[in-house]
């Protein structure tokens, strides 16, 4: 029994049906961690992107080094670092928060590149035209660059959302009860890993296919030329 649901071990099919609600509880945690991690990645990535494009070399280079370092080290090790080292300096976060933070930090390195590429893809002629029309730097950015960068940024971000979802099981090592951890516990108790782990695989396939389809729909519905100007 887990989360108040009994399992039925009479045959594999009954077993699969009886543990499905338990796995769905785990799936809900997976989705929460994905969304929270994605949010952190979006915000931190933007910060890194702004720092990397700074005029001053003393700001831009460290930001680039940090991005490279985050990108080149495993999520698992970053998670261990946050989970075991932060408390030594008095920062004690719940496992779920630590996990979401680790996901966000790992993916901020990737999202910062998406922001940068999206903004750079807006042609130089656009900026020059805005300047010729006497728009201020701030207005050029918010009304000319951002509306054209958004259709390029959103699909790429969507792909990273799916990647984050696939990295959530790593959080099981710090006792977060997401879907894989739940399946592992069921396996530990029933000595049957085949059904729960296969079911998790199928559920993952469904989640990623749905999420990818959503991203594709978003991609086709975004105006390629940029958001309409007000």
């Amino acid at each position, binding site marked *: 029994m887990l989360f108040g649901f009994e399992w039925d071990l009479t045959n594999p099919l009954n077993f699969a049906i009886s543990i499905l609600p338990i796995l769905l509880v785990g799936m809900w945690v997976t989705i929460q961690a994905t969304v929270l991690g994605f949010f952190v990645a979006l915000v931190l990535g933007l910060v890194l992107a702004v720092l990397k494009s700074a005029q001053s070399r003393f700001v831009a280079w460290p930001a680039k080094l940090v991005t490279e370092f985050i990108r*080149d080290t*495993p999520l698992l*090790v970053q998670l261990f670092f946050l989970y075991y*080292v932060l408390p030594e300096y008095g920062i004690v976060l719940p496992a779920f928060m630590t996990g979401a933070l680790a996901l966000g930090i790992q993916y901020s390195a990737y999202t910062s590149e998406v922001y940068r590429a999206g903004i750079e893809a807006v042609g130089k002629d656009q900026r020059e035209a805005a300047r010729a029309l006497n728009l201020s730097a701030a207005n050029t950015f918010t009304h000319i660059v951002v509306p054209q960068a958004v259709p390029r940024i959103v699909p790429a971000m969507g792909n990273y959302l799916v990647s984050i979802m*696939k990295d959530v099981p790593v959080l099981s090592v710090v006792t977060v009860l997401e879907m*894989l951890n739940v399946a*592992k516990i069921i396996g530990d108790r029933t000595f049957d*890993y085949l059904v729960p782990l*296969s079911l998790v695989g199928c559920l*993952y396939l469904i989640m990623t296919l749905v999420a990818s389809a959503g991203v594709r729909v978003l991609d086709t519905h975004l105006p390629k030329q940029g958001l309409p100007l007000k």
Partner: protein
Amino acid sequence: MHWSEYLLPLTEGAWVTVQLTVYSTILGGVLAFVFGIGKLSSNLAIKSVSVGYIEVFRGTSLLVQLFWLYFALPLAGMAIGIDLRLPPVVAGVLALGLNIGAYGAEVVRGAIQSVHQNQREAARALNFTPRQTLFNIVIPQAIPEMMPSFGNLAVQNLKDTALVSLISLGDLTFRAEQIRNFTQDSTTIYTLLLLMYFGMAVVLTIIMRIVERFAGRWRMAGS
């Protein structure tokens, strides 16, 4: 314990990580070509097997795949009367290789499709068979296009090897965990661990750049 005493066990673990990375990247590379070409096949059976492989391994989490191979596969084997218990090393290399191979297959497919149609038409005009066209004309030109993505995937694979520590394989992360359990000196060990992974990734990136430059010569072939 002084931090320098950690270095010997960590280096032993790093060597396991290097071996895992090399073996699984090679396996992944082979799978990438087999299924990337397979996805473009006109044979429906080959095509659907390739698409199925790519979707399953790209659509699920690596850790799920690893656990499935290590914990669930032996039970599946028992049900049909075959001993499918894999040693951790085999399960690890297999999971990493299958996973990275699926991502690589999409890269191979994209690169092959990016080769200009003129090249195929010219090959046909010169009476090349489809097989000769693929292996002597299209793939040599596609490989330089694949290299930057392969470089990224190799680094991705190196990072993913950390997960095999969860099936009790004595890689770098596993050794670090052992030392931490013994000394409780989290800050030093995890900082060293991060730096060692970073160092290995930088070396791997440099190696992949050299290979990329070497493969870049094919871009000029015949021109």
